């Protein structure tokens, strides 16, 4: 039995080694260069399109993305993950990277995002204003104050002078959105881009207090990237008109 098991392991190891071997000559034969971009999850749609744009203007370049929460991405880069470009959903996480001397260029802000009230289609609880969110009996879901979208919600509530009593403080903005689309929550606070991406599953309600709680997205190249020039060109593309118009279509506001 033991021998059979060891044999299986050996077979698997050999098979996977063989797999590696056959992969490498293939990629070097095609002479492709890979640019690795780490970006906050809220940027997924917009950055994928910017990536396609970049690939079509750069022959033999493949843009690979790693979309996750900004703090997870920072942790990965700090542990030595091979990133060329980093785009964060808030300045605090970019600051962590600059503090560790892990950025290759000065961070530039390239977009901002504001909060909107998301309600299920038809708005069953008839929410109209930010103050309505404090109503008793309303199932309000927001992000926990520990994550950027929760910090923004707290800021909006403070500036509106409204005390929010959420029934749940979620881990991420996608969790909040899921509670609203499933109809569990009567209202949730999410980003304008999330409302746009959710399409017909939710209705978005803008509110003036969100202006005080806008989050700003910075981008920078990571220290010692494999392709300094390519990384910088990608950052430039995000900052110029092409990138900006794609971001605008995804619901982002221009950087302040």
């Amino acid at each position, binding site marked *: 039995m033991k021998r059979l098991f060891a044999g299986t392991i050996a077979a698997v190891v050999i098979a996977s080694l063989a797999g590696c071997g056959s992969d490498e000559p293939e990629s070097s034969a095609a002479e492709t260069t890979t640019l690795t971009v780490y970006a906050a999850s809220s940027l997924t749609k917009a950055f994928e399109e910017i990536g396609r744009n970049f690939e079509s203007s750069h022959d033999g370049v493949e843009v690979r993305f790693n979309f996750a*929460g900004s*703090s997870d991405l920072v942790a990965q880069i700090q542990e030595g993950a091979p990133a060329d470009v980093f785009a964060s959903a808030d300045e605090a996480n970019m600051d962590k990277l600059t503090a560790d001397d892990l950025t290759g260029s000065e961070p530039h802000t390239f977009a901002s995002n504001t909060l909107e009230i998301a309600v299920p289609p038809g708005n069953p609880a008839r929410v109209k204003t930010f103050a309505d969110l404090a109503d008793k009996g309303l*199932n309000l*879901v927001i992000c*926990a104050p*520990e*994550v950027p979208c929760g910090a923004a919600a707290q800021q909006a509530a403070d500036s509106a002078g409204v005390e929010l009593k*959420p*029934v*749940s*403080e*979620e*881990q991420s903005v996608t*969790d909040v959105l*899921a*509670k609203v689309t*499933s*109809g*569990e929550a009567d209202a949730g606070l999410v980003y304008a881009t999330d409302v746009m991406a959710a399409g017909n599953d939710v209705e978005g309600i803008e509110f003036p207090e969100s202006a005080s709680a806008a989050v700003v997205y910075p981008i920078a190249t990571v220290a010692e990237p494999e392709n300094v020039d390519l990384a910088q060109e990608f950052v430039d593309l995000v900052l110029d008109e092409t990138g900006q118009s794609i971001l605008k279509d995804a619901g982002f506001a221009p950087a302040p």
Partner: protein
Amino acid sequence: MLLPLVAILARTPWSRFFELITSEASREALLLSLRTSSTSTLLCILLGVPMAVVLARTSFRGQGILRSLVLLPLVLPPVVGGIALLYTFGRRGLLGETFEVLGMQVAFSTTAVVMAQTFVAMPFLVVSLEGALRTAGQKYEVVAASLGAGPTTVFRRVTLPLVLPGLASGAVLAFARSLGEFGATITFAGSLQGVTRTLPLEIYLRRETDAQAAVALSLVLVVVAVLVIGFARQGRSAL
């Protein structure tokens, strides 16, 4: 198996340990976890014992299917379990309106946490107990019945004492599984301090801002788990 535990010990911020684990949020999360896990273990026993008896002592068409259904939560990713519960007991779920009419709201309540835990932990109890029942066999039950004991007396005086160790280890497993429950809880019950934020949810949230606090709390969970297992062992050898 041991290496990850050693890694947690090595990364634990001992100087701030007590301050971290005695913060209000941590205490509430731990108490909530212990409370909900005990309740769901009790529910598992109440619902799981009859189920195990039916599976072990009877045979009927479709029993195999029933057993597979009972075991399903064991192989299902907890998140899927959470989604299933949401579509059953959520406000727009199959039974959601019935609950609403009764003036009960399951979503975002501690009840939802207990339901999620019971859902994922039940198979552990049923499997252990069914195994114990089958191993114990029916010899003694038949003898007891032939001596004039009614079915209730047979179950209480003969069957139950025989399978008690199996029931106990099943209950411990169910408790441990409830304590660690994360996926179904976060999808079905939400996360609010003191109401639905159990220890695993608190750990996951703390990681966002204070990795050291997350490590400290993880160690607490490890210690509680070790205590539960040790306690169960002692209980078993005493039986």
